[in-house]
């Protein structure tokens, strides 16, 4: 198996939630590299609607962490210009559902700026935002737009599932010379169940390396972000009936860690892919296609995908558990691939 334990044992740690780990990474990055700047809607004075940048403006100065006009295209587009002239902007969009006003800047420029100038200009920028549902918030506050980015060349997409990974991936993202989009699952931000010991120092987790979150030999659950937790619940339930699920937490959606996926599929022969974005054309499709190309002969059952429905995320608060993938739906898919 490529990587099962990748936690450094040395060094000081303290218990952190996802939110705290992300804040810690941002704080360290600001201290570590004077070219890092942060801006967005409400990130300066308020510290963002989820308070992830709280305290950073006070600590690092208003020229490093500041509020800007309400415009996603402006935030991302100016970051392209800033990155070209030598800054490392780490910008925040208020929610993943509000990424689209920036989509032309992403597609036409973030994606191509370096390629287009044949390396004359670089685009070392990070765009962070909260994503995912299950909280009964307003419309467009529960979206998961990772596939639009994964299909767009030239950029990376990190989507952590726990505080340790979040901090290490974010520090990698900020140091990376490619543009990186960084997804933060709202439901995980302050979930006490995810609170864990995290090193207080500066450390990095490589982009493009998956994590085997649970070892097992019967079914591979391939997932990322907030869905890792759901898969863990489903896997624990399955274990009670003697089914051993392996959970692959991709950590980065783009580039994808094909090697780790294939190793797992070759072992289990059965695959369930779980994501919150809607099914059709989602990242589950790409993963399934990679398996159907590279590990077809290992498959003992059709590949199942558990995903959001092909509608906008349900705005009907009391019905969300019917549409967002939950452990119970994943359990159903596990049964399916096992009985195939």
């Amino acid at each position, binding site marked *: 198996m490529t990587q099962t334990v990748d936690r450094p044992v040395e060094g000081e740690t303290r218990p952190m939630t996802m939110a705290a780990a992300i804040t810690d990474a941002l704080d360290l990055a600001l201290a570590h590299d*004077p070219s890092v700047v942060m801006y967005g809607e409400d990130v300066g*004075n308020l510290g963002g609607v989820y308070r992830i940048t709280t305290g950073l403006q006070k600590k690092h100065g208003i020229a490093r962490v500041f509020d*800007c006009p*309400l*415009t996603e295209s402006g935030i991302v587009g100016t970051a392209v210009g800033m990155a070209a002239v030598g800054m490392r902007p780490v910008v925040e969009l208020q929610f993943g*559902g509000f990424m689209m006003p920036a989509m032309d800047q992403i597609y036409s420029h973030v994606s191509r700026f370096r390629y287009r100038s044949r390396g004359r200009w670089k685009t070392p920028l990070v765009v962070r935002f909260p994503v995912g549902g299950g909280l009964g918030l307003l*419309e467009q506050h529960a979206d998961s737009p990772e596939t639009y980015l994964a299909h767009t060349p030239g950029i990376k997409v990190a989507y952590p599932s726990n505080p340790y990974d979040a901090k290490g991936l974010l520090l990698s993202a900020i140091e990376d010379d490619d543009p990186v989009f960084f997804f933060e699952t709202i439901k995980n931000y302050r979930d006490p169940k995810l609170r864990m010991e995290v090193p207080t120092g500066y450390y990095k987790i490589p982009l493009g390396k998956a994590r085997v979150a649970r070892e097992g030999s019967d079914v591979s659950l391939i997932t990322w972000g907030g869905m890792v937790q759901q898969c863990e619940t489903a896997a624990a339930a399955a274990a009670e009936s003697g089914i051993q699920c392996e959970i692959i937490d991709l950590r980065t959606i783009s580039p994808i860690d094909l090697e780790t996926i294939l190793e797992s599929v070759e072992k289990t022969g059965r695959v369930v892919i779980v994501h919150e974005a809607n099914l059709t054309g989602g990242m589950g499709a790409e993963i399934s296609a990679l398996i159907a190309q590279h590990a077809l002969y290992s498959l003992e059952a059709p590949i199942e995908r558990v995903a959001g*429905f*092909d509608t906008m995320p349900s705005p009907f608060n009391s019905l969300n558990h019917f549409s967002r993938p939950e452990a119970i739906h994943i359990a159903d898919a596990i049964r399916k691939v096992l009985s195939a």
Partner: protein
Amino acid sequence: MAKSSRTTSKQDATFKGSVTETSDLKPFQILASDGKPVREDLIPDLELVETLYRKMAQMRYLDDKFFALAKQARLGTYAQFGGQEASQVGSAFALERSDYLAPMYRSTAAMITHGWSTKNAIMYWRGHPEGWRLPDNLNILPIIISIPGQYVHGAGAALGAKLKGTNQIAMTYIGEGGTSQGDFHIAVNFASATNAPCVFIIENNGWAISVPRAVQSKVDYLMRRAEGYGIPGYLVDGNDVLAVHHTAKQAVDDARAGKGPSLIEQMTYRIRPHTTGDETKAYRTEDEANDWIANRDPISRVKKFLELEKRWNDDREVAMIAEIESEFAEALAAADAAPAPDPRAILEYAMVNPGQNLIAQQAELERRIAAFGGAA
């Protein structure tokens, strides 16, 4: 890696935002904050003034109730409009019933003024599918959360009505923060270019969540942008319901007469948090809000005027409040009595003609309904 990012105090000023202070403009008023007329000549029929007052009072009551319901988790996250009653009621009241309204998340008062029911509003903010269904007999476009798509829809609806020759016009709302978006510019300019009968309203309530107006742009008043589109621009005291209504009526009449779009900036203030999830302490002083509440409240201003005109007294006030309360209680009871939503609503209206993906997902939904132990 850059050597240093040199935090100088000059740079600091930049990121706090600063407005070039050269203003020659003053917001248009008909009533001063103390309720005394500053433009006697423009006071409308007192019947209209009373109607506007009653609507505003009803809206304030509703807004406070919605807040309380949200805090009890009987509504979801709710965007209060408290403080902006004159701004919304005064402008929406200038529409004909058949005109189009393209609202944003904070437009509840404008929507109800245009005919939406309190019951539906409760159910919308509760996330109940029935509240999301907009009534057939109302020309209210869907509530838009993504800032500010509705401005472009307003321009399109106006152009469509014009092409059909129906004599309808459209009105749409945005916050001052939203004016920094591309679609703000696109919409107003598209309507300028096509002479579409659309009234564009900016409710400048001072704040975009925690971001003060000054951070959005150096310009003093956003309605100055009208000049850049070659259309009329108006600066109005948004807490003076008579000034708001007068101006909106002018813009509505112009639009209907084929004179094209207008841009109106209504200076107002959000006396409540951004939404029921927001905490204002983190970014503004209570004094600021209290000053607006005490000295520039849109409702007491017109109430004082009506009292001065002997058109209003405590008895009427008491009777009105009783009426408002009982109407609201009735609407709430009706909303509470609505059956729990059917989970099948999740896939309803996804497409007029669904493909195999949605058909398969309908089957999956039925499985999930069964797994959770039955429908509803």
